[in-house]
């Protein structure tokens, strides 16, 4: 029987093209995205058809998780420093420089003001383990949310008109909690709020959908 000789082929594949693709994708992701902000809790926001973008700066953000715990965060390190120093003198917290620094570079805080010293002296993992992420109290007897709003505004300095008040709440957050928060804002004479949502398409055949179709054609 004649043997058919198969020519031996090298198993080396040229990886250059694949490498190109990989780095192209890498560049794309590096340029098109930004880092996820630190979040103390995971929050799944509801979706709406609104397309207004959440601004990057001048935002007072109140995160509410599904158990109704409220966390406060604000951008700008100098502003955060002013806020915590104001709180420190007003409530006589006796924070040292390290704890102030911890607040300034940190992300969100959510704890009663009296626990703030212990809260800031701990690392994030210790807080979670120690159950200190209790959220800012919002009930009418001890409404510290109002204080945070007030000091947050005071720390903004001159450009008050640009400040946005955002509420980022979870799908499952009970409505009474939201109502408490809205009432607190109302009592501070803040009428214009922003609710953080995901984007969804307007459903077909509705007024908003027709408007969108109209703008697309022009």
């Amino acid at each position, binding site marked *: 029987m004649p043997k058919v000789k198969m020519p031996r082929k090298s198993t080396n594949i040229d990886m250059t093209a694949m490498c190109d693709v*990989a780095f192209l994708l890498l560049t794309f992701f590096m340029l098109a995205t930004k880092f996820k902000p630190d979040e103390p809790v995971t929050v799944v926001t509801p979706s709406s058809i609104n397309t207004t*973008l959440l601004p990057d700066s001048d935002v007072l953000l109140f995160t509410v998780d599904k158990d109704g715990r409220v966390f406060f965060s604000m951008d700008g390190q100098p502003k955060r420093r002013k806020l915590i120093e104001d709180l420190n003198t007003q409530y006589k917290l006796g924070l040292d420089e390290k704890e102030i620094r911890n607040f300034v570079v940190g992300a969100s805080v959510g704890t009663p003001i009296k626990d703030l010293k212990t809260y800031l002296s701990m690392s994030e993992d210790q807080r979670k383990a120690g159950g200190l992420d209790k959220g800012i109290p919002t009930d009418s007897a001890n409404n510290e949310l109002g204080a945070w709003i007030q000091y947050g505004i005071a720390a903004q300095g001159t450009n008050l008109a640009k400040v946005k008040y955002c509420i980022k709440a979870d799908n499952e957050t009970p409505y009474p909690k939201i109502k408490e928060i809205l009432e607190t804002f109302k009592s501070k004479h803040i009428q214009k709020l922003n609710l953080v949502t995901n984007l969804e398409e307007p459903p077909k055949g509705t007024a908003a959908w027709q408007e969108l179709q109209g703008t697309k054609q022009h």
Partner: protein
Amino acid sequence: MAEMDTSSSGGKGKKHGGTKSKKLSTRVDMTPMVDLGFLLITFFMLTTTMSKPKTMDLIMPKDTENEKEQNKVKESTALTILLGKDNRVYYYEGLAQDPNASADPNFFKATSFANTGGIRDEIIRKRDEVARLRNSKGEPEDVVVIIKADDDANYKNFVDILDEMAINRIQRYATVDISEQDKKWIKSTETANGVQ
């Protein structure tokens, strides 16, 4: 693939054959580089956010004690929507100032957030119906939607119903505290529908 000719044969020495140097392949094994590339891609994909979150404007009214500044809503142009537990929605036409209104079995109705046959259809129906009415100046009336959320409702329901207002371009709506009467109606409708 483009390869560079790196054989040490510069111009002149080619023909006369100088010292023969060994030809080294310039092919570099790209596999580790590809590995690294994909590792970084994975890292960036997991730690970053693609799209910025969107926001919904919510403008709340001022509390006013002054009777004259308060807006009065006509019974005929109002639609009241109640948010209950487990994503349930209830609605009735008008403001139900008359406590005997519920004597009519078709007065208080339950529905859902479904895309068709849900609360949206009802809002559209009422909107178009009210648009045919004329006020004393002969202008078309605007529907006024009153939103009342029960304590069992969650944030999603609240945003969803505000979103419905945006979807259907309802200009006038208000969120109002739920009344005892409304709670009673929700309770009785739940029992009638066998909800725990």
